[in-house]
C-alpha cells in the first residue's frame, strides 16, 4: 500500500515540540540563578523585598503630600511595574499628586562600586595565582609528557606507574600533613604556596592526557626534526606545541577554572587580608552579620567576569573539545 511511507514521514515529523518545551524549561531554571544575581545586584535590600522577581523599572515617582498642618512634603520613590506602563498612582490616600519620570538612578550602581572595591584586590590575587599556576603546570606537564611519549627510556615504566598511582590516591588525607609541610617551608600565608601546590597537584592529570596526545602525533615529524639536528627542547617547541594547541587550550581552561574555584587550601593557608584569593574573600564577605544582598550579588557578578571573558573567547573550543576529546583522555 502506498500509504505506509506517508505514515512514516508523518510520525517522523510530529512531536518535536514537547522536547523543545522540556529542554527550554530546564535551561530556564538553569539560567535563573544567573538572572537573579544580575537583577538583584542593582537593588538594595528594601527594593529587593518590595519586588524580588523582576528588575526595577527605570522610573521614579515624585509624590507631594499635604500634612494636617498645611505643610507640603515631597517624597521620591521607585515606581512599580504596573506604574511603569500606565500613569503613576499614589501609594497612600494622603498623597496629593504623583508624577512619574524616567530615572536611571533607581539602579544602585553604588553596589558595583562597592563590590569592585571589596573584591577587586582578591580578584587580582586570584588572577595572579591562577595564571601562574596554569602556565607553570602546563609547561612542566608538556616536558614530562614528552619524556614519556617520545622514547621508552629505562625506568620510564616505573616512573609512569608512580604517577598513575597518584590518580587513584585520594587527596583528602593529605591536607593535614601538607599544612605542616608548608609551615616548615615557611610558605604559610603566601600566594606561592597556592601556586606550588597547584602545580604539583596538576601534574598527574595533565601529563596523563598530554602523553596520550603526543603519542598519537605522527612519528615522522619527530624523526625529520631530529635529522635536522633539533634538540629535544626545539622539538617540543616546534613540533609538539604547534600540533597540540587545542588540547593544551582545553587543559589550560580546566586548570584555570580549578584554581579560580579553589578555596580549601587558601582558607587554611592565608591569614592576611591583602593576600586573600577570591574563595576566602567571598567566604569572609558571606560571614558579615548584616547582609546587603545587592552588594554581594554585584561582588559575585564581578567575580564571574574573568570567566565570562574566557568563555566568550573559548566557547567554541570548549563545546567542541569537551564533546570530542574529553572521553578519550
Amino acid at each position, binding site marked *: 500500500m502506498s500509504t505506509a511511507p506517508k505514515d512514516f514521514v508523518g510520525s517522523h515529523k510530529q512531536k*518535536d515540540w514537547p522536547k523543545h518545551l522540556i529542554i527550554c524549561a530546564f535551561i530556564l531554571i538553569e539560567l535563573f540563578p544567573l538572572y537573579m544575581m544580575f537583577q538583584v545586584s542593582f537593588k538594595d535590600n528594601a527594593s529587593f523585598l518590595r519586588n524580588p522577581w523582576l528588575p526595577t523599572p527605570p522610573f521614579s515617582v515624585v509624590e507631594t503630600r499635604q500634612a494636617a498642618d498645611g505643610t507640603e512634603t515631597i517624597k521620591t520613590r521607585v515606581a512599580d511595574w504596573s506604574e511603569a506602563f500606565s500613569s503613576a498612582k499614589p501609594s497612600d490616600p494622603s498623597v496629593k499628586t504623583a508624577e512619574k519620570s524616567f530615572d536611571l538612578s533607581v539602579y544602585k550602581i553604588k553596589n558595583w562600586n562597592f563590590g569592585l572595591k571589596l573584591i577587586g584586590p582578591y580578584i587580582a590575587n586570584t588572577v595572579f595565582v591562577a595564571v601562574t599556576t596554569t602556565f607553570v603546570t602546563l609547561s612542566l606537564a608538556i616536558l614530562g609528557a614528552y619524556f614519556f611519549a617520545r622514547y621508552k627510556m629505562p625506568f620510564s615504566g616505573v616512573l609512569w606507574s608512580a604517577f598513575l598511582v597518584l590518580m587513584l590516591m585520594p587527596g583528602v588525607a593529605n591536607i593535614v*600533613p601538607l599544612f605542616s609541610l608548608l609551615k616548615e617551608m615557611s610558605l604559610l600565608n603566601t600566594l606561592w604556596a597556592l601556586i606550588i601546590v597547584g602545580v604539583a597537584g596538576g601534574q598527574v592529570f595533565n601529563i596523563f592526557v598530554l602523553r596520550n596526545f603526543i603519542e598519537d602525533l605522527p612519528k615522522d615529524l619527530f624523526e625529520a626534526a631530529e635529522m635536522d639536528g633539533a634538540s629535544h627542547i626545539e622539538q617540543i617547541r616546534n613540533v609538539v606545541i604547534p600540533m597540540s594547541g587545542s588540547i593544551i587550550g582545553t587543559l589550560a581552561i580546566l586548570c584555570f577554572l580549578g584554581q579560580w574555584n579553589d578555596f580549601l587550601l587558601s582558607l587554611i593557608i592565608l591569614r592576611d587580608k591583602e593576600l586573600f584569593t577570591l574563595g576566602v574573600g567571598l567566604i569572609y564577605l558571606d560571614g558579615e552579620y548584616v547582609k546587603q544582598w545587592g552588594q554581594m550579588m554585584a561582588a559575585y557578578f564581578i567575580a564571574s567576569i574573568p570567566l565570562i571573558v574566557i568563555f566568550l573567547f573559548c566557547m567554541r573550543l570548549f563545546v567542541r573539545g569537551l564533546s570530542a576529546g574529553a572521553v578519550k583522555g
Partner: protein
Amino acid sequence: MAFPISRQKALREWKLYFLILPSLLLVCTFAYFPAASAIYHSFFDWAGGETKQLIGFDNFKRALSDKDLWSSFKTVSILIVFNLFKMIPSIMMAVLIHRVKSDRWQYLYRVMLVVPMIVPSLVTLFIWKFFFDPNMGVLNNILDFTGIKSLLVYFDHVFGWNLFFENAPIGWLSQPGLILPSLFIWGFPWIGAVGVLIYLAGLQSIGQEIYEAAELDGVGPFKKFIYIELPLILTQVRLSLVLLVIGTLQGYGLQLLLLGEAGGAGGRGMVPGLWMYNKAFVAGEFGYACAVGMILFVFILLLTFLNNKYVRVDK
C-alpha cells in the same frame, strides 16, 4: 606507543631525564611525602607543633568508637544516594537534546547549557546560600508564591515532622531536620553542563537510520532509551558514577561553605572529610585527624579496587 630504545642510545639521551625531573620532584614533595607523613603521624598524639608522642593504635581505637565519625559516614552514604539520583536529569537532558531533529537547535541548546558555567562554582554555592536564606531567600519566596508552603505545612500536620510551620519562614539551613533535604535540593535542576556534553558525544555515534528502523518497528520513546541510547552512553555513565561516588565520599567543601565547620545545626551535615578538617584546624588534634584521614583513605581505596574489578570502564 613510545619507541623502546637501546641501552646505548638511552645513555646518549640521558639528558631526557631532566624533562621529567621537575614534575617528579614536585609530586614527591607535595603528594608522596604528605601521604607518607599522614600514615606516620596517625600513630602519634600530635598538635601540629614540635612535640609529639607515639601512642600506637590509640588514634584508630578512638576513631572506631567515635560516634560522630560513624554518623558522618552514614550522612555521606545518604548524600551518595542523593547524588546518584541527581545524575538522572543530565542523562535525560542529553537524550532529549540528541533527539531534537534540527542540528541548529541542538547547537543552540548546547551553548545555552554552557552559559551557566560562567558562574564560578564557588559563587553558585553562595547564590544557593542566598536562595536558602529564611527571610529574604528565593526558595521560601517561591514556596509562598506558589502555595506549596501551605501544602508542606499540611503534610507536616499529617505526618508530624515538626519542620514546617504556618507563620514562620522555613529555616532551610538552620533546622537539623531540614539540612539533608537542603543538601538534596541544592543545585536544582541538577544538570551538569560537562556531563551533558560528554553524554552527547557518546550519543553522536547513533545514526539516524537506527531511529528510523526503531520507529518503523513501533518502538516507544522509553524503549528507545533503554535499547538504543543507554547502551551507547553506558561507558560515560559508569565513569561519572565512579567519579561521583569517590568525589562525594572525600568532598567537604560544599558542607563547609553551606553549613560551617561544625556541619550545621545538630551536626546533621557532618561528613568524614569535614570531621577530619574540624579535628585538625578547629580542635588542633592533628594526629587524630591523620587517623581519620587514613580511615577515609582505606574506604576510598576499597571502592577504587571494587570499581576496577567489577565496574570495568572500557576505553
